[in-house]
């Protein structure tokens, strides 16, 4: 897909393209050459050329199908239960169900898909830049910054003081979250920059800043009115409840604008896996690439958080799951995004059915699933460090 530096690379010319290079005969017979071709194939059209990993392509297709199926399953649930056929019928048909599905259920489901994809993509980029599987937009200051600002305003405009107006509820909170997320990221970036951007330092500073934001958030929750804190809690755990087209559109625009540059940067992300001198020697402006990629991750995570609140662990886990599914060398961007979408939609389905008729916020489920996964990653990292 987009990652040229994955585990294997075809070193031999495929038979039909045998070039008149003297070395090409002997290499076609070397044993590793055949393995290479299975794992990664060159795709050449005229002067253009890419490498395609059949395994990544297959994983992507399966994830795409799984996401579509899970989305449709999720859309069955609601005040009027529907069958899968009815959902599909309502999307294409024109009955009374059409409004319910198109205006209420589809936007909610799409918000989940897009938010999951955006968070996962942000996570994949962050992990690649930081060269650390534990990095995520939380570490970049986005989600803590967003949480603090939203909680602060909900508590400040407490119900005792008349409560937040209608504008605050619909437009204000996403906007606040967006601004809070960007400010949080700016704080981390500024503190982490020291004549250049180092992945390790970024993670350390990010963890520190997150801790400060998180504690301010808890403090605000304790001094706030109980009802306000309750409402704030729903938002900060990340929820897809009541999400409409007004939430879908900004995330869709964000993805449309940010995915192409992120994919263009994928080659440079591969190069960044090497030491700084090697990277510069290869003609990559490492600080520029790191900064731009971090910016893309911050924007993606901010837009996603603005739409659905800080849904936990998707950004952290999806890239690592995608990494293992594809066997790639670093978190693959496209497959990570698809994994994030499938994961979020699946979590939402669980959140709505597990304790039916009570619906949990989706973030509660992702957190419950994510916590053991995080522990697993930590144990694995420790084992590796010891061996």
């Amino acid at each position, binding site marked *: 897909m987009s990652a*040229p*530096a*994955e*585990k*294997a*690379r*075809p*070193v*031999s*010319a495929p038979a039909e*393209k045998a*070039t008149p*290079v003297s*070395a*090409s005969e*002997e*290499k076609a017979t*070397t*044993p*590793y*050459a055949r*393995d*290479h071709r299975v794992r990664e194939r*060159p795709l*050449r059209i005229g*002067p*253009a*050329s*890419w*490498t395609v990993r059949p395994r990544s392509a297959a994983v992507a297709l399966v994830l795409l199908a799984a996401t579509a199926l899970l989305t449709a399953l999720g859309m069955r649930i609601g005040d009027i239960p529907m069958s899968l056929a009815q959902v599909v019928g309502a999307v294409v048909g024109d009955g009374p169900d059409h409004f319910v599905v198109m205006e209420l259920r589809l936007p909610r489901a799409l918000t989940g898909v897009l938010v999951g994809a955006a968070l996962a993509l942000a996570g994949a980029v962050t992990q690649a830049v930081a060269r650390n599987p534990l990095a995520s937009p939380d570490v970049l200051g986005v989600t803590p910054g967003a949480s603090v600002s939203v909680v602060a305003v909900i508590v400040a405009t407490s119900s005792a003081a008349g409560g937040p107006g209608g504008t605050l509820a619909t437009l204000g909170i996403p906007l606040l979250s967006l601004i809070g997320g960007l400010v949080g990221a700016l704080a981390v970036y500024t503190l982490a920059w020291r004549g250049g951007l180092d992945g390790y330092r970024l993670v350390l500073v990010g963890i520190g800043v997150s801790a400060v934001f998180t504690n301010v958030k808890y403090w605000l929750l304790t001094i706030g009115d109980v009802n306000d804190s309750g409402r704030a809690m729903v938002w900060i755990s990340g929820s897809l409840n009541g999400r409409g087209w007004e939430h879908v559109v900004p995330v869709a625009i964000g993805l449309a604008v940010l995915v192409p540059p992120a*994919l*263009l940067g994928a*080659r440079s992300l*591969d*190069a960044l*896996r*090497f*030491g700084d*001198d*090697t990277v*510069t*020697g*290869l*003609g*990559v*402006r490492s600080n520029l690439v790191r900064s731009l990629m971090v910016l893309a991750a911050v924007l993606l995570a901010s837009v996603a958080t603005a739409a659905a609140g800080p849904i936990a662990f998707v950004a952290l886990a999806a890239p690592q799951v995608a990494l293992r599914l594809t066997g790639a*060398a*670093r978190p693959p961007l496209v497959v990570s995004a698809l994994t994030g979408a499938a994961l979020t939609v699946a979590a939402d389905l669980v959140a709505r059915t597990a304790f039916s008729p009570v619906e949990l916020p989706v973030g509660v489920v992702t957190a419950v699933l994510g916590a053991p996964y995080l522990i697993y990653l930590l144990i694995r990292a420790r084992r590796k460090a010891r061996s």
Partner: protein
Amino acid sequence: MRLRAVDVKLGYGDRVIVDGLDLGIEAGTVTTIIGPNGCGKSTLLRALGRLLKPSGGEVLLDGKRIDRMPTREVAKILGVLPQAPTAPEGLTVADLVARGRHPHQTWYRQWSSGDESAVNEALSMTGLLDLGERPLDELSGGQRQRAWISMALAQGTDLLLLDEPTTFLDLAHQIEVLELVRRLHSELGRTVVMVLHDLNLAARYTDHLVAMRGGEVVAAGPPGDVLTEGLLAEVFDLAAKVIEDPVTGTPLVVPVGPLPPPARRD
């Protein structure tokens, strides 16, 4: 003159290591920089390879200021092998070498047949064709260093800067790497600049020897002119006999013992 340092001032932070140094690299030569630890030879090499920006003076590549050229364009002319480079864990030799094609690739041209043949030629030049699929961490030190040199080769630059390519290698592997460097020069016509510690090997594999001390060039020229007993005392505080290498006829340094620093010598 392919590469020139003009009155460069180099250092890290406030620490100045090299001040007002001039050095020129002629096309088609193998130049080796020698000198005691901390004399600024690696710093100089990093500046020549635009890995370190001079705080004064300038580095010229083919007459143009290297810091004003797009770094990607520089990467098509000049390849750098840093000291003790690190690769991501589990990376295969073929992957590493393929990475050398980076400056020639764009988003729509990521793996052309030209890339493929450059990688294959580099692997066959360094004798690693059969090890392409092996992870780098499973190779011997000498093979690993050859793999890194292959990457620089695949980059297709006619200038190569090698920072201590033989460090941590046993003598046989040092010879193996330096024989490769010699072939890059004689068969492919590459211009090579490297930093070496072993004076005898430097004398064997070099056209132009540059001896540095305290951030300054003390002597430069053919090994026979530079490696003298007087220079060894001046640059390394070393009393030594210089005899003729019975194999190659180049100077052979036989150490006698340390000398006190020049300040305490009369």
